[in-house]
């Protein structure tokens, strides 16, 4: 601890703050704010005098807090699934899967997790589909249950042993709580003699300029070393900004933007794209269905009949078609747009030739949200229609995307499969660290797709995984960060 060598002039309010910190030796920013009844901006201003003169130092602390998820709250309230299973089996001796599911009133996945847990501990056996206990041990994973109970009450509890399990079982998530701690370097008692109250002559006032008193006043020099108070300008969300740039690039390449609705008819999402009505991608596990209203109206145009023919017998394309009875009811079901190609499909109506289109659209898939999956994501999609276009041109288009959008010359083409294109290609980008990354897909629309819309020329369909591209470019490994609501990131993420 050193004493002050030079005299220091401080504004009266800063001295007041200094005295207070000095008397406490150490205080968190939040508490001080509350106590002094100062807003953050003013406080930062005053602190800048104390910090730049090395009277006070500031350190930032990060505390981790475990917050229960919905599943965690439920487990805290009703009990952990493995405990519920044990209780159920103790009551009934042995149960089959469906009986157990009925008692537990939980989903299959959850139940299976519980069963797996008990099997691992060797407490459970399954014989001919019947579950029974091997050991009548009642208190399973008691410590964990206790931790959940405490967390649900908001109490402090030692969780070092349980951190991993809490996160892995999705019972809790971690929230980071940040604060600054202010510590006294030179106590006021020691520096008192060196400190003078400045009559704030740092400020050049309009009156001084007008009356000429500036000529005789010495304006105090600013301390140019210290950081200024924090200031957060308005800005675009980093990922939204990136999407803007991709749009600009595509427009510059001559692509015209298109859009479609979020709630989509299966007709545009699947049927118009020659995806058979019993195709696995149309099942519950692969596409979100809307509950209210369940059905929309098919368009009145003649192409609906021709799409039907295309599915049933290939229409006039020479194709065999899928050879089944096509149902307009299935086609009228409402889903959440599962891929941007539905927007391209809508654009096929009255398509002008030549033309190039793109859209960047929010798409939805029933995935459990984790570091690599979101329930919604963004896709760049589009089409190119021209009588002269060939498969080699399609590769050329993908090459342009690799060079201009992904900004890399290390890429690779692979055969791919889409129900609506033939031939189909995957574009992979070679990343030095991550290996091959699938960046896009493309193909020439099948005749079964375009003929019902009276199109005679080849139409190329392409799509780019821009979420992944943004992540690779910015070193983001958790896809959830694209939609991050952390103010700190939103305010301070670097512009790339």
């Amino acid at each position, binding site marked *: 601890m050193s004493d002050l060598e030079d005299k220091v002039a401080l504004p009266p309010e800063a001295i007041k703050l200094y005295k207070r910190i000095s008397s406490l030796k150490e205080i968190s920013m939040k508490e001080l704010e509350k106590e002094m009844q100062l807003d953050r901006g003013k406080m930062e201003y005053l602190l800048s005098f104390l910090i730049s003169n090395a009277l006070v130092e500031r350190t930032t602390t990060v505390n981790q807090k475990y917050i229960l998820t919905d599943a965690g709250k439920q487990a805290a309230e009703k009990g952990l699934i493995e405990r519920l299973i044990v209780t159920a089996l103790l009551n009934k001796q042995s149960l089959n899967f469906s009986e157990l599911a009925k008692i537990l009133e939980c989903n299959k996945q959850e139940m299976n997790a519980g069963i797996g847990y008990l099997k691992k501990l060797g407490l459970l056996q399954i014989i001919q589909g019947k579950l029974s206990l091997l050991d009548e041990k009642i208190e399973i994973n008691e410590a964990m249950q206790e931790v959940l109970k405490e967390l649900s009450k908001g109490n402090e509890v030692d969780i070092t042993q349980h951190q991993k399990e809490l996160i892995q079982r999705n019972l809790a998530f971690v929230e980071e709580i940040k604060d600054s701690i202010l510590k006294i370097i030179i106590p006021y008692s020691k520096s008192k003699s060196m400190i003078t109250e400045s009559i704030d002559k740092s400020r050049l006032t309009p009156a001084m300029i007008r009356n000429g008193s500036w000529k005789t006043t010495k304006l105090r020099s600013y301390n140019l070393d210290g950081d200024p108070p924090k200031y957060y*300008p308005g800005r675009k*969300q980093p990922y*939204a900004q990136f999407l803007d740039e991709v749009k600009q690039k595509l*427009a510059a390449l*001559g692509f015209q933007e298109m859009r479609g609705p979020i709630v989509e008819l299966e007709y545009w999402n699947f049927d118009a794209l020659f995806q058979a009505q019993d195709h696995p991608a149309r099942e519950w596990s692969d596409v979100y269905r809307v509950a209210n209203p369940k059905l929309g109206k098919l368009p009145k145009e003649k192409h609906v009949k021709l799409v039907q023919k295309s599915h049933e017998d290939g229409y006039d394309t020479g194709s065999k078609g899928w050879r089944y009875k096509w149902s307009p009811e299935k086609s009228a079901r409402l889903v959440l747009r599962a891929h941007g190609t539905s927007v391209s499909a809508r654009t096929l109506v009255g398509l002008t030739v030549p033309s190039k289109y793109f859209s960047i659209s929010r798409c939805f898939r029933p995935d459990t*949200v984790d570091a690599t999956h979101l*329930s919604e994501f963004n896709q760049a999609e589009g089409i190119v229609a021209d009588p002269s276009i060939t498969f080699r041109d399609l590769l050329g288009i993908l090459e342009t995307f690799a060079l201009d959008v992904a900004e890399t010359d290390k890429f690779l083409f*692979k055969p791919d499969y889409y129900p609506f294109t033939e031939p189909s290609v995957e574009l992979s980008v070679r990343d030095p660290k991550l290996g091959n990354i699938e960046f896009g897909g493309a193909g020439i629309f099948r005749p079964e797709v375009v003929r019902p819309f009276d199109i005679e020329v080849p139409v190329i369909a392409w799509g780019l995984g821009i979420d992944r591209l943004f992540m690779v470019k910015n070193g983001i490994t958790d896809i959830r960060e694209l939609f991050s609501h952390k*103010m700190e990131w939103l305010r301070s993420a670097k512009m790339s």
Partner: protein
Amino acid sequence: MVSIKTSYTKMKELLGKDVTIEELDDLLAFAKSEIDDYVEEEDMLVIDIKTSIRPDLWCPEGMVREIKGILEQEAGIPEYEVKKSNYKVIVDPKLATSRPYIACAIAKNLNLTDYSIKQLMQHSEKIDNSYGRKRKRSSIGMYNLSMIESPIEYKVIDKSHKFVPLEHEEEMDLPTILEKHEKGHEFGDIVKGYGHYPLLLSANGTTLSLPPVINSDDVGRITEDTKEFLIEVTGTNYETVNVVLNILCQNMVDYGSDIYSVEIIYPPEIRKENEVTPLLKKETIIVDLDKINRDLGVNLTPDEVIAALRKRRFECKATGKSELEVEIPPYRKDILHWVDIVEEVAIALDYNKIGATKWEVITTGGLLPETESENKVRSILVGSGGIEIFSNILTEPEILTTNVNLTKVDLVKLQNPVSSTYSVLRDRLFPLLINVLSKNTHETYPQLIFEVGEVVKILGKRVLTQTHASFGFAGAEASFEDVHKRLHMMLDLLDTEYKIEPISHPTFTEGRSGKIIIAEKTCGIIGEIHPSVLELNQIWVPVVVFEIQLPSIPTLNCKKKFTD
């Protein structure tokens, strides 16, 4: 996409050469497959196959068949001899309304190891699940032939019929199997839909299986000691049933087995003639050389196309000046149109060698007026000090309702949400801003945030997507005026007149909130969030927000987008 597990060592054995993981991945690309994972300690590869219409590729033998073609180790359609057996299957006419088709074959001289049995089972399961549409369209059964006598009956049987299902010890009648057995749970609904029970029965009275649910525990159990197999596929689609059998027979041949045929005696209600399966007659398709050359942008001779297609395991011959006849291997039913053959030629030429062109399709590009309009609003709000946020369109109902003191809201809901956190579509943005503020109370104030984004609404029986803009100001000093002046300037810059009329709204403080009206139409809301809502969200500073529908601002070019 289908994913399988297999052994790296066995894969190399099949290929007959030593390849690194990277080399193998490059080769697998020709079978539309890629390595998803390699677990070195277990010698295990996880391979993803991207095509959902080529079940023949969902096993190492199928992939290697393609790769050997590309490497020019083999060419054309693999041929094998089918010998005649004395086995017959008699099909019951009552099955015409439920599960009418069956195809069978016998495989002899098989030497399966535990590993190859597991691989075989994996392949059957993948086919049943995806190509067989969870056994609805087709399902596979395999049996120990030595316990079966001809003729086999494929018939409707009374529900009181009993047998011991696989993995069980006691006899059960058929409803009990559907009720109690694990597979009965999974696939019982298919049978319930039929209104009767289909059964495969040996002449000696032994039950083979209850298709498509479960095999019997004795005849239907395959082990390393099983040397002779009966393979059977039943289903609702004639073509699917037969191609699945062909795929399995080709695999058995690749395992070194001999294939024998089985006669299927169909009643006239189902098919006019009896059949001898597997049906290995090859389908053909005519392609035009000029069209192939045009589509690909190449200039191949007929001989080059023939060579390319033989590499892809087709047979091909010139039948006219520019006409070629292509023979399709019997394990494939994915060729619907000649464009499918065009792709095969392209794959044989190698996408990375065929040469990308400097393409030229001259068109004028541009953003939609909607996007330009949204960008105008975004830049004004950024200029107003707003930090843009990006939130999920699919969200939690509580965020849109109880969290902002609303009860009856007509939201678009999902039938099949994965979790309630993502189960409704947002119909407005400001509750999401409140949610963001509630998660950031530890950050410095003031916090100025905004979002310009799509929302989804129900209008009568129709659903529409439109863009809203919402701005929020949170801080000890936040006042109605802070937000009002920003809204005012935004609309002034957009040359739009508006007025605000007082409103009573559960989210806002009475007397400090109003609806935004443009051209006599309500199109938004502005106000101070009610302290009870702040308390509920644990936000301890005042918050003022506005939200406005962009299609209602006449100088902008945003439109409502109806689904139909």
